[in-house]
């Protein structure tokens, strides 16, 4: 930096390095996903079968929906611990409403989810309480409400072909829940990238005070993301009820933490202000695929891992990803 001429090149060098690090950080998960898919395809005969792909997508669409809402919440610097309980509540309400037709059974739970999310947002934005404790309380309340409505047991649905189709059917060969998830993610990308709301979400997460001073409607943005998260969680609950023919008040335990893990694996920082909707989807699919591959491996017979190992492996995987991201972030900073 002694002469003027070297300065731009030096700057460009660090800039490139920063970009490379960020590229590795974001694409690293995608590379891992592709590698896992390739591994599975080469090793197992039925891995690429329509049945396997469809069943993975059908089940993980629920986690995908929750993680999408969670991504928006985390980008504002918040957290939503209530989603797992809202899934349970959504599934119970959907099951209870199946006698009255498909539309109420799908729409009403989502509306209830929106109300719960809105309440979260209102308490957080207007009363200024920490998202962690507010949504923790909402977790208890939503779970209690689900148990109360369901009388502490699972609720069978009235077998309405339309409702069952919503969870178990296919459209053009694609499972309906996967389509719902796909539409939600496309909408999520558009919302984040091209809408004013998306910009505002990132601005609030980056620096709330600055956002407020710039005249951004901070409170309304917070209400928006928590409402979105509640609605998506309830929608996942509807899919749960439609997929397993029951409303399950005790299901969804710890799903909020799985969703947070997916978001983190995708590379969205918990401090807010940055993030990617697509990366979250990659994170969800990656965590789902690990389960799938373990199942195939058990079927192969070389190793026999009980289902209990899955949570150990999932936790270890989260640890590795977090440590790697931490490394990359530090390198980027220096």
């Amino acid at each position: 930096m002694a002469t003027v001429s070297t300065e731009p090149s030096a700057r460009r060098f660090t800039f490139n390095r920063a970009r490379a690090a960020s590229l590795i950080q974001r694409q690293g998960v995608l590379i891992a996903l592709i590698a896992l898919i390739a591994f599975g395809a080469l090793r197992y005969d039925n891995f690429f079968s329509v049945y396997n792909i469809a069943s993975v997508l059908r089940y993980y669409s629920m986690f995908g929906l929750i993680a999408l809402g969670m991504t928006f919440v985390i980008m504002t610097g918040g957290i939503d611990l209530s989603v797992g309980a809202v899934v349970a509540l959504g599934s119970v309400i959907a099951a209870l409403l199946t006698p009255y037709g498909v539309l109420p059974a799908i729409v009403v739970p989502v509306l209830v989810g929106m109300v719960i999310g809105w309440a979260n947002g209102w308490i957080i934005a207007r009363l200024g309480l920490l998202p962690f404790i507010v949504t923790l309380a909402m977790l208890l309340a939503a779970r209690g409400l689900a148990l109360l409505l369901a009388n502490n047991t699972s609720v069978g649905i009235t077998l309405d072909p339309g409702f069952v189709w919503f969870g178990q059917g296919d459209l053009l060969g694609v499972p309906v829940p996967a389509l719902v998830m796909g539409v939600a993610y496309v909408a999520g990308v558009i919302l984040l990238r091209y809408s004013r709301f998306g910009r505002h979400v990132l601005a609030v997460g980056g620096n709330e005070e600055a956002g407020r001073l710039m005249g951004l409607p901070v409170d309304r943005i917070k209400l928006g993301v928590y409402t979105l998260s509640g609605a998506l969680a309830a929608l996942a609950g509807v899919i749960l009820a439609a997929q397993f023919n029951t409303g399950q008040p005790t299901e969804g335990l710890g799903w909020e933490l799985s969703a947070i893990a997916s978001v983190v694996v995708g590379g969205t920082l918990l401090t807010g202000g940055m993030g990617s909707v697509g990366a979250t989807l990659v994170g969800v699919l990656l965590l789902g695929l690990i389960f799938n591959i373990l199942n195939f491996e058990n079927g192969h017979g070389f190793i026999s891992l009980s289902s209990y190992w899955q949570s150990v492996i999932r936790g270890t995987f989260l640890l590795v990803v977090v440590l790697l991201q931490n490394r990359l972030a530090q390198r980027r900073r220096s």
Partner: protein
Amino acid sequence: MANPDRTLKRVSRPVLSTRFAAVGQTYGAALALLALIIYNIGFTPFFLNPATVNSNLTQVAPIVIVAVGMTLVIATGGIDLSVGALMAVAGALAPLIFLSTLLPANYPFIGIGLALLIPMLVAGAFGLFNGSLVAYFKIQPIIATLVLFIAGRGIAQVVTNGALQNFTNPGFRYIGIGRPFGIPFQVILMVGIVAGVAWAMRTTTFGRYVLAVGGNEAAARLAGVPVTRIKLAVYGLSGLLAGLAGLIVIAINASSDANSVGLDMELDAIASVAVGGTPLTGGRATVIGTLIGALIIQLIRYTLLAHGIPDAAARIVKAAIILAAVYIQRQRRA
């Protein structure tokens, strides 16, 4: 604050008004507890019956023991989601040790001693692992402890193969059902731990350091506080206490089920801390408040159950109480 005399005083000990607010905060929770007790004496039959008192106290003791560790973690600005999973780990290990045939059969107290010591140390070591992720790798506490929240219970299930372990070991069961002077042994443990930690927080350098780390980490570091060691210590202690609570729970049940020991304990512990008046942002802590918070939550649950209100509804009330407590405390601070 312009008065230099007052500023000086603040260095040596808290200003009167700060102290007053702190006392008021403790009293707020204490008054609520008192009101609950008086209500129950008036309206719940057999409330003062020794059997009822003992059963309430034995139920609350493990929660309080875990919540004391959680109070210290929260005082440093952290959180520990792994406590329930660590309870399961300790609960899974203990029967494996005292049912083991490797130990000399004619010295049963060796087996019992090891069965008490080793699981607690293992849980403490897991706590140190949490602490090292937070302190050395600068991973956010919620994510760092999420790793063991996911993996910890899996480890307990793998170790026991998910099977229920029944035992009849009077020596070991003493920590759960022993009654010296008619008082349940774990209640004596609880009181001892609360008193010891409350004393340590008030009078020892360690206590000051914990609060300093939570209040302003950068400033504490510059002032020479061993931030890294303090963080390791609080997470380690939280793990250790969770281990102890796990042992108490299995000693009461005379069986250990890795699937259920300590389930949802992190929520109860965090709620107790919050209701007790320790802010989740760190920098302040009241161990006695945590005891009161846990007693309030326990008594509310008991009161509702004693009056025929289902457990599911009790959860909703619990959620409302948590929010109200946190909100009132926030008002006081402002």
